[in-house]
């Protein structure tokens, strides 16, 4: 089960996989001298053609907060506006107490965090989480 585009019959059955990127992945994509920054950009460049982002709402605090601290408020606002376009509202998971029970049942490869909880919100879509330490193809994710 996945996304389907009903307005484009040719691509109607093209499923898009969900990705949950750690906030650090977004930030590392913006900082050119960060190791593997270009790889992070490559991942982002595959959204939305191959992947759609499914993120916990804390992504705003972490990405925009970092940009505000290290750059300025204007840049942080720019980041906020672009993230709002980039992440579909239905795939932005509110980090609240209703969300909490969804993650306690799972066996987590990357530890228990809001980021992993976002993955388990849409288990039937087989989402994948990309942590900061992701290096190329070591997770064996097709298409990245």
């Amino acid at each position, binding site marked *: 089960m996945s996304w*389907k585009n*009903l307005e484009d019959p040719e691509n109607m059955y093209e499923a898009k996989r969900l990705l949950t990127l750690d906030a650090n992945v*977004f930030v590392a994509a*913006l900082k*050119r001298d960060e190791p593997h920054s270009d790889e992070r950009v490559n991942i982002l460049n595959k959204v939305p053609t191959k992947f759609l982002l499914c993120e916990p709402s804390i992504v705003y605090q972490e990405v925009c907060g970092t*940009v505000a601290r290290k750059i300025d408020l204007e840049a942080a606002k*720019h980041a906020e506006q672009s993230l709002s*376009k980039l992440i579909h509202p239905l795939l932005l998971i509110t980090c609240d107490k209703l969300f909490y029970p969804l993650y306690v049942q799972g066996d987590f490869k990357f*530890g228990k965090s809001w980021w992993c909880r976002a993955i388990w919100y*849409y288990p039937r879509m087989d989402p994948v989480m990309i942590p900061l330490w992701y290096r190329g193809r070591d997770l064996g994710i097709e298409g990245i």
Partner: protein
Amino acid sequence: MPTLLIKNVSEELLSELRRLKKELKCKTWSELLEKLVKHRQRGIFFISNKELKEMEEGKEEFLKLRNVVSEKWVGEPGVLEESRRSRKHVRG
């Protein structure tokens, strides 16, 4: 009860709807429609070209920040160190 008549349903779409009807264990088409609407936020929903275009724009706008960030934030602390500092904890 009102009746919904849908014309010009393609074979592909009908096949997909049949699959969904079976998978979601719906006895009737109206039950399937109801489930699709109710479960929309938990795994099944459709995306429009407009929304896809907006995501593309969002991505481009986000990556435009790369120049500003890279000019003003050079070297240490790295992203991970900054993140740990802001989260006020250390993770492996």
